[in-house]
């Protein structure tokens, strides 16, 4: 079922899935608590197709946790999450928290969100092309030769055709991260989620990864981007959210936020990181 849906949305894997401005992700009043520590204190966000939302903020501000709540790698303590117009049903666990009511629903929704991790997390026992076709074949039920064809196109696009049969351990960090982006694109995601994609890279490798992400933004792909690269966020984002201590301190267009920050905290944050 997922496979036919994936094919029906877009026949060309290199193009974003949908062109009209439908709502892709809607989050309202999200709370997340780890024991006594409340990491998110009511964060809301709506991303429409083609939006590039950049989440910025100091460490411990909750921006990564927020991203991880969207595909339920962390269970939000409370709040509403709607993805592709579908609300995720939650059940109370009786201790003030909640967990997804239907595992299959979570798995289905996850398979439409392309996650890129800070530490790449390419599967170490598979070659690059095997990494890229793994999810299309074993989750989405795509035919292997079909997945291969798409995978090779994607590798060419991130400039890694030559690394097709190389294991991740033999690739540089920048190459691994570009490979991880190809892996995420291979599922023809509705939204790409980037969790600090350049934070674990040597400085000289950051540029090659940012270029790939920038190209995706230019072609109108919907993305949520947690990043410390302020210049990059300003360039590619359509909307920027500044998180501080688990709340959205300030949000708006990049020019508003970086050009004329209102809050004292954001002014100070921009001064310290740039």
């Amino acid at each position: 079922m997922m496979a036919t849906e994936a094919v029906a949305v877009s026949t060309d894997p290199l193009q974003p899935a949908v062109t009209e401005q439908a709502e892709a992700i809607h989050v309202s009043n999200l709370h997340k608590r780890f024991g006594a520590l409340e990491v998110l204190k009511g964060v809301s966000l709506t991303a429409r197709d083609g939006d590039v939302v950049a989440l910025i903020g100091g460490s411990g501000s909750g921006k990564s946790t927020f991203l991880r709540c969207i595909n339920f790698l962390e269970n939000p303590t409370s709040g509403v999450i709607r993805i592709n117009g579908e609300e995720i049903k939650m059940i109370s666990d009786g201790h003030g928290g909640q967990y997804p009511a239907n595992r299959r629903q979570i798995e289905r929704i996850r398979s439409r969100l392309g996650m890129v991790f800070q530490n790449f997390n390419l599967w170490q026992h598979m070659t690059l092309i095997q990494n890229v076709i793994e999810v299309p074949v074993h989750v989405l039920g795509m035919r292997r030769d079909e997945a291969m064809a798409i995978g090779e196109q994607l590798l060419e696009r991130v400039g890694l055709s030559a690394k097709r049969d190389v294991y991740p351990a033999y690739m540089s960090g920048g190459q691994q991260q570009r490979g991880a982006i190809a892996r995420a694109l291979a599922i023809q995601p509705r939204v790409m989620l980037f969790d600090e994609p350049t934070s674990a890279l040597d400085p000289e490798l950051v540029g090659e990864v940012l270029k790939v992400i920038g190209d995706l933004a230019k072609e109108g792909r919907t993305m949520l981007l947690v990043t410390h690269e302020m210049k990059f966020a300003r360039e590619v984002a359509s909307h920027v959210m500044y998180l501080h201590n688990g709340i959205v301190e300030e949000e708006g267009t990049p020019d508003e936020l970086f050009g004329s920050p209102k809050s004292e905290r954001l002014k100070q944050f921009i001064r310290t990181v740039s």
Partner: protein
Amino acid sequence: MSDTQIEVPIETFPIHKESDPSRRSNRLPPHRIVLGLIGLGLVASAAFFMRWDWLPNYGDLILQGLWRTIWILCVTVFLGFLLAVPLGLAQAAGPAILAIPARAFCTVIRGTPLLVQLWLLYYGLGSLFPQYPWIRGSELWPYLRQAWPYAVLALTLSYAGYEGEVMRGAFASVPKGQLEAARAFGMRRFTIFRRIWLPQAIHRALPTLAGEAVLQLKSTPLVATITVVDLYAVASRVRQDTFLTYEPLLLLAAGYLIITAIIVSLFRRIERLIPSKLG
């Protein structure tokens, strides 16, 4: 620019020296020739100065014993490993209701001598079973009255106990990010286990598993104590019949050495199929 240099190690990483073309030349290094000659000399003197006239009489028996040792080894390593996977998984990630019995099993097996386990099964269970008529009447009885099922059971449980512990460590050592990536892409739990977790755990455990298989080989002579005629039992029989002390034992040692060499080279071949570096 460094890309080509990075790729080369897959074929010629230092641990794969054997496959390095420069080392594969026909000329043997001098020290190998000397050692080879010494070895040949030892074998020749053993053949010449010792008594081997009994060998033809026991040829069939030796082959049977050899075969029995090998199949018991293969079957128990295979079955033991199948048991070790759930034992390791239960300890590494299972709920307490599974983890505690698994840990208890591994502790008991590893904490008691294999000989005691073997005898408890054979003399204990084996003498209990005949008391129940429904067991004596069952289709399994022809097997249960023989010794080898108890030998296979004891060795399987023993291997499972040790390997369960190895697999626990192997499962736990797979980086969380590897599994998290699988979850983030909507993989089902069993798919994650089958496609990501188990393969990486086995890769990590392979060198240890090879060593444990060799140890298992050297546990097999214990089955001779419950009347299973393996390679060791044949050697004992020869000693009793011929009153020769060293010849059968030397032959026995050579036999185990050769099987060990085969196990080691088999595992090395498997390891080489797999990239040597895991993150």
